[in-house]
């Protein structure tokens, strides 16, 4: 029986009280609940505080380049569909530097789960505004406040027909670990945008701020209804919904590739004799 301890990695170097801890705990809990063994799981991250998460896990991990989580995760999943591939990184990693990859991974519908630790600020580089910072957010580099509008990952993902679009927050481990389980079991690209306080650099979106606003989508909410999903995704301010906003069943990238139907690439053996008839037609 796999236990939480099996996933215990190195000692953490996050600020005490960081929202990242809740996400780490929820992820481990979800993997254990799903009875997944560490060797079956690959966590791919970029660069940032959030992207340090793989260091604090014990399973297959890949800590890559800033912004490039999804291309690496895509490559790994295509090469070995048997792996449960989970991408992890911050809002800067995924929506700024890696924004283009976000769009195209959704379009391809790669069967992976993406956890975005959305603290609405660049943590590792010490507090610059991120794509999800609120207009007016003040930092050392944005002294007059952010003047660009904030990136709404949920609305964007829904508009691209992402097959699983959801939100949770680091302050509710039960909800988040439930959601991770749903996302991992879902076949296709799954986004979990995770609201997370940054106690050092984001003095606005605190635990308390979120606690006062967050509510769970009602049981009767239907994630198959795209228009309703847009409406919920646009809801922000005094009330912030969490849960599964949108779900759409559709074939994954691997389902549609002839070469992958025979199983993972790494299991397929080269058989040169198979090309002989073809070569003979050429001679």
């Amino acid at each position, binding site marked *: 029986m796999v236990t939480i301890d099996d996933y215990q990695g190195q000692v953490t170097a996050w600020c005490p009280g960081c929202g990242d801890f809740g996400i780490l705990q929820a992820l481990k809990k979800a993997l254990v609940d799903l009875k997944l063994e560490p060797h079956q799981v690959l966590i791919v991250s970029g660069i940032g505080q959030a992207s340090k998460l793989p260091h604090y896990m014990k399973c297959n991990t890949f800590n890559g*380049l800033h912004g490039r989580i999804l291309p690496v995760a895509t490559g790994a999943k295509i090469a070995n569909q048997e792996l449960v591939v989970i991408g992890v990184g911050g809002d800067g990693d995924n929506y700024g530097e890696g924004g283009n990859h976000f769009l195209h991974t959704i379009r391809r519908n790669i069967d992976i789960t993406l956890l975005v630790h959305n603290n609405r600020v660049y943590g590792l580089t010490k507090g*610059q505004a991120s794509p999800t910072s609120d207009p007016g957010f003040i930092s050392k580099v944005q002294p007059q406040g952010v003047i660009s509008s904030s990136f709404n990952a949920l609305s964007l993902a829904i508009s691209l027909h992402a097959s699983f679009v959801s939100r949770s927050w680091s302050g509710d481990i039960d909800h988040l670990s439930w959601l991770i389980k749903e996302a991992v079991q879902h076949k296709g690209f799954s986004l979990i945008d995770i609201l997370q306080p940054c106690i050092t650099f984001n003095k606005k979106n605190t635990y308390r701020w979120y606690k006062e606003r967050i509510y769970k989508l009602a049981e009767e909410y239907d994630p198959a209804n795209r228009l309703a999903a847009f409406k919920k995704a646009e809801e922000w301010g005094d009330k912030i919904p969490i849960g599964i906003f949108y779900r759409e069943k559709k074939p994954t990238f691997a389902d549609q590739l002839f070469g992958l139907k025979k199983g993972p690439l790494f299991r397929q053996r080269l058989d040169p004799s198979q090309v002989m008839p073809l070569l003979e037609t050429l001679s």
Partner: protein
Amino acid sequence: MNKRILMSGNEALAEGAIRAGCRYYFGYPITPQSEIAAYMARRMREVEGIFLQAESELAAINMVYGAASAGARTMTSSSGPGISLKQEGISYLAGAELPAVVVNVMRGGPGLGNIAPSQSDYFQATRGGGHGDYHLVVLAPSSVQEMADLTYLAFDLADKYRNPMMILADAILGQMMEGVKFKNGVKDIPGKKWAIGGARGRDANIIRSLYLQEGVLEEHNRHLQEKYARMRSQEVRYESFAAKDADLLIIAYGSMARLSMEVVNKLREKGVKAGLLRPISLWPFPYTAIKRLISGVKFIFVVEMSEGQMLEDVKLAVGSQVPVYFYGRLGGGVPTPLEIMEKIESLLKNRI
């Protein structure tokens, strides 16, 4: 306002750019140069310029490409991983003959490496990190004062040659604080007849690096090479210290040159005739100056925070005339003057 102001190297560099008339800065956060962005964010408001934090380095360098084509003095800055991402844009700037200043505050590599000081991007900077036959003038400051002065100069050279320029600093120079004096006021920026900006009453200006007709690209490249030849003959910069009667010549640039200055002083105290040559322009490299200096020199000692990148240029200059020794630290390791002294003294012992 000609007082000496205490500032970090990153801040002095940013102020130097502002004084040179740079009003468009595009960046993306990365350590150890984020102070440049923070300073620019504040100062650009005061001088009614533009500070823009882009979504990535690719966006930032292409914003520079756009601003430069419109005739503005513009700059971007980054470190290791971000500079690598900017290489495509730098190649286009060179191909399209646009002036711009790119700052690399070097950190340890390869890959993500670390955020400690390093000089391991020398090859990338001086050999052209992007595609195509092109060069940037690469200037290597070695004090906070020079962080400001060379940046100022870089803007002038960029306009003079219509070519991107690079400031190659490192985490030591970026973070350390010293007194610095600034030149007064903004100079007149030369008019740019080639810039895009409305073609009423004249033919349209076209900014491009694409030349498809047969032979035209080769001709364009010949023209670029003539320009690089002019840079080679006019823009070599270096400084020497106690080099005239030296038996032992240390060659080092940037923060390693400062450190080596101390080594030279200590060696002189001990009766060793040591001297220093400090290339300021890494491209064009002071080959001729080195050749001239070494006629009386018994051996040369190169110090770098890399496994010997500038060393290759020194060897090209020296040939087999004088033996060249090397000491380098890697991956963010910073040598101490003592370390270098010991290395040199053991060399001296073995030679006697």
